[in-house]
């Protein structure tokens, strides 16, 4: 039987007024309604508006939220697998490759397992993957891998802070709301923040005139989920439409954000007093060696983490990123 029209309330990890939120709301929310003949509508709410960011899987399981569309680094304290799924630093070159890991590779399967572990099997994964490469706003020039040594770098949960620590930097865990002030005042030298376009919008590039772009191959992955009971009430066609819609939206967002990033970075390069730094290949290789050691360490933290890493390595081989 065709299910009745339903509006899903989905909490995101975007801040209200972000480039990404605005873009999705204007361009993609109308499309899901179209694709399901009005049976499915989505209402996106900003980060932390209903429950704290790291509680969304539980909230979806309980039906407080219908779903989440969120960066999964927040869950790394609950299940180390999410540190690997959330941002496998120096693993992939482009967001498209990592989206492929989810869409065509073994990504969704292991992801669903990790979700089941923290959300009692009541949350259904719709799709996963990144939409951007993070830039690294810095207030002092970090031109090579060696320059990382001794630098104070704001980094949130997950693999990122471990990798920075291993590279000789001091990871400082300050809340995202304090990043601007901390960079402005030199409490940190650099901050793992967001895509170049988002950093520009929040003014981070103004207080940190030496942004690393492209960054250090940090690509935070997001998930779209639904409450399992709600998902099972949908027709198979609508379920498929939702998944297709998610990947189409993410691919589009990837392209748009990349375009914006490139444009802004090119403009900033010409500006007086701003230096957009692109690491030489040699530094990127050194970073990769350090990062891979940290992957291994995180993989030892739980069986699921091991499984998540193995799935990634296997997929990297099939697409020729590793031998």
């Amino acid at each position: 039987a065709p299910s009745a029209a339903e509006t899903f309330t989905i909490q995101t990890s975007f801040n209200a007024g972000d480039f990404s939120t605005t873009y999705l709301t204007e361009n993609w929310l109308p499309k899901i309604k179209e694709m399901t003949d009005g049976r499915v509508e989505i209402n996106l709410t900003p980060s932390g508006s209903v429950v704290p960011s790291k509680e969304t899987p539980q909230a979806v399981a309980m039906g407080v939220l219908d779903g989440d569309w969120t960066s999964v680094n927040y869950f790394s304290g609950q299940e180390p697998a999410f540190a690997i799924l959330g941002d496998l630093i120096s693993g992939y070159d482009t967001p498209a490759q990592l989206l492929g890991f989810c869409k065509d590779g073994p990504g969704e399967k292991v992801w669903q397992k990790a979700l089941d572990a923290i959300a009692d099997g009541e949350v259904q994964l719709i799709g996963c993957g990144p939409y951007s490469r993070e830039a690294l706003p810095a207030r002092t020039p970090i031109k090579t891998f060696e320059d990382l040594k001794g630098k104070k770098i704001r980094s949130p949960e997950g693999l990122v802070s471990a990798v920075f620590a291993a590279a000789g930097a001091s990871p400082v865990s300050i809340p995202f709301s304090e990043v601007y002030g901390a960079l402005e005042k030199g409490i940190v030298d650099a901050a793992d923040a967001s895509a170049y376009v988002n950093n520009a919008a929040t003014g981070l590039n103004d207080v940190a005139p030496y942004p690393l772009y492209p960054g250090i191959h940090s690509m935070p992955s997001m998930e779209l989920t639904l409450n399992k009971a709600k998902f099972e009430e949908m027709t198979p066609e609508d379920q498929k439409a939702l998944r297709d819609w998610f990947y189409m939206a993410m691919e589009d967002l990837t392209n748009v954000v990349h375009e914006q990033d490139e444009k802004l970075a090119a403009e900033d390069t010409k500006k007086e007093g701003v230096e957009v730094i692109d690491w030489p290949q040699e530094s990127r290789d050194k970073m990769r060696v350090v990062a891979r050691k940290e992957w291994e360490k995180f993989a030892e933290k739980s069986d699921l983490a091991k499984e998540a890493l193995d799935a990634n390595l296997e997929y990297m081989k099939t697409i020729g990123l590793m031998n």
Partner: protein
Amino acid sequence: MGIEYITILIVASLLALMAIGIPLGVTTLLVSLGTAILYFGERAGFFLVSANVTEVLHKYELIAVPFFVFMANVLERSGIAHTLFESMAILGGRFRGSVAVQTTIVAVILAAMSGIMGGEIVMLGLIALPQMLRLGYDRKLSIGIICAAGALATLIPPSVVLIVYGLAAQVSITKLFAASAVPGLLLALLFIAYILVRVRLNPVMAPIYDIPETGLPFFNRLKFLKGAVLPAVLITVVLGMIYGGIATVTEAAAIGAVGALVVSGIQQRLSWTMMRNAMRQTVLTVGSIIWLVLGAVSLIGIYNRIGGGDFLRDLLGSLDIAPIMVIVVMMLIVMVLGTFLEWIAILFITVPIFAPVVADLGYDPIWFGVLFAMNIQIYYLSPPFGPACFFLKSVTKDIELQEIFAAVLPFIALQAVGLFLVLFFPQIALWLPSMLGN
């Protein structure tokens, strides 16, 4: 049931429960638990409340509150504030109305050291008020100036009100601090101007401060400045750390707390008992604030989830008036709430609703935060629930509450003037942060 009825029901039950004297933290918890269970059932409702409440404990910025409370307690108990007042009074000499003007100036200096209102009013009430009355100053003028100037503690940075506003509205606390400094001084100047005009018109209100020291030539009086040196150093260090880019507000507050101990040590007023009592008082103050925040935050989360935020935004957005008038309406709502609610309750009821509307209308949330803090100044004085008046009453036996309320009325008018000046000339607030930004 539509969201409009639920909103009315929530507000009505909050007001009813608060009115019969149930602690505000319990009231908000009760209403949020009730709403959550009705809407989502027991399991999901319980989860929603517990997730939001636990998150409050992760708010780094909230840690500054106990530090500032402790710092204020040390300054008050160690007598540093007392010394400061004496030196300032002597420095002022025999100018008519000088003691009233100095009380205002001392209040501003104390306000730059302390982030909470209570301690400062108690201190001024204990030290300045008896002096002014002894010298034959008009009772109403003296009482009014102490309540109004004492309240500046939470407008002139650092300020607990601005910290909690910054948390609720998700804006930079450092910028809020920078933006509130000039409006704070503006209010102080309005108070001083008012004093000078009143005593010119009616000299009986303010006799000359006639002790031998004030008769000395100005240059000789300068040596009495020494009581003000260490507090001045402390202020410079704390504010310098915040604006000079050395530390976060929380860290600066910790340094301030340590600094207050050091200053009282240098002045040989540091004792184990003093420190212990100051800290116990801090535990009680902060312990009572935190339960208020816990309840309020969980109520906001639930209200948002059931569509309350959108509803109120639409409601305010659909008002067919100029954008600036929407701000005026908001300010009037805060003013009315301020006659009978605690500031934290007002903040948590209004800010989550108002802040997004302010942004939608294209106004700066920092500016709105300053307006909010200025409105809280009015709240401190306005009867029947005027905490500044209660604090003063708690230290003076022979003054009735009614007399205090009558005395603060002209100052409420001055605060309103200041509020509307900043409302129609936002540069007053935004000029300093824009200067610091470059």
